[in-house]
């Protein structure tokens, strides 16, 4: 017997995301965690560039807009001067894994005490579906018309695996949003990341595997199947690093 209320940390209007887009799903569960932790007024959402920018008109709380890929640097400056605030950056794959690679690696390696939530839908949604560093081999985009070719474009970048090799990060995990179970796991991971941050225990990184029905050229329901059989086998969900396994529940 469940009770559920839409989080107060979301505006009352519909999101600007396309039907079935999991950007709104991940924003919703982040908002739920912020609500449940009673952090609405203490939270700062760093909104970078990409479809995530649509949160400017969806997130009900303090927002700081950042340049493309620079959210972890902006978060560093803000959190270091406001250590008591709950700070998180919500970045897409182009933003984080391409243009912002230096910033995410730098912040993670310094063990900055904030949370980065990484939405991986293997494409640049806002600009019309170009190839992202996370685009799967063979996946068609507007800049890989015949499917991504490893020969010339390399392989999809695994950010959790990369970040887990660093010494400093406290918590690194990846979950897929294509099932209710995955959504619940993701939410738990976000809660854990935020709790690690509020305990001052350092950098947390949660990757959320999502979709882009519009640019993948699929119905929302088709994307669920596609994720199950293509995305998830390559980007394996799970906890990649958990420094305080026994200390923070």
């Amino acid at each position: 017997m469940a009770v559920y209320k839409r989080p107060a940390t979301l505006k009352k209007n519909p999101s600007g995301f396309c039907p079935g887009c999991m950007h709104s799903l991940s924003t919703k569960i982040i908002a739920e965690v912020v609500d449940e932790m009673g952090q609405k007024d203490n939270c700062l959402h760093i909104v970078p560039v990409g479809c995530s920018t649509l949160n400017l008109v969806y997130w009900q709380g303090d927002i700081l807009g950042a340049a493309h890929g620079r959210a972890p640097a902006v978060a560093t400056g803000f959190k270091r001067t406001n250590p008591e605030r709950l700070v998180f950056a919500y970045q897409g794959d182009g933003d984080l894994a391409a243009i912002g690679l230096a910033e995410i690696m730098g912040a993670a390696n310094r063990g900055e005490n904030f949370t980065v939530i990484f939405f991986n839908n293997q494409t640049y949604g806002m600009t019309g579906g170009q190839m992202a560093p996370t685009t799967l081999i063979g996946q068609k985009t507007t800049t890989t018309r015949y499917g991504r070719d490893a020969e010339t474009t390399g392989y999809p970048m695994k950010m959790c695996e990369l970040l887990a090799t660093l010494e400093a990060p406290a918590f690194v995990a990846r979950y897929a949003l294509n099932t209710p179970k995955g959504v619940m796991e993701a939410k738990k991971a976000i809660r854990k990341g935020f709790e690690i941050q509020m305990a001052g225990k350092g950098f947390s990184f949660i990757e959320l595997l999502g979709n882009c029905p519009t640019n993948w050229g699929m119905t929302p329901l088709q994307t669920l199947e596609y994720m199950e059989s293509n995305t998830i086998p390559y980007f394996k969900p799970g906890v990649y690093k958990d420094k305080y396994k026994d200390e923070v529940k």
Partner: protein
Amino acid sequence: MIELNVMLCKGCSYCIKFCPKKILELGTDRNKFGHFYPHLTDEAKCISCGICATICPEGAIELPEKEKEEQ
């Protein structure tokens, strides 16, 4: 029982897919943004499990508190 905020629904149908009782169905009406939205085919069968609310990207489905008291 669930409450759907029709205004927020975009008709993605995730709730329909994951409803364990298979009692959600996309209707033929559109909301003011032009999206079809689902409805319960058999209200009595709803177990208020909350799976539809969990997977709904827009937070359009709520399970109100009063339900609890009635039970």
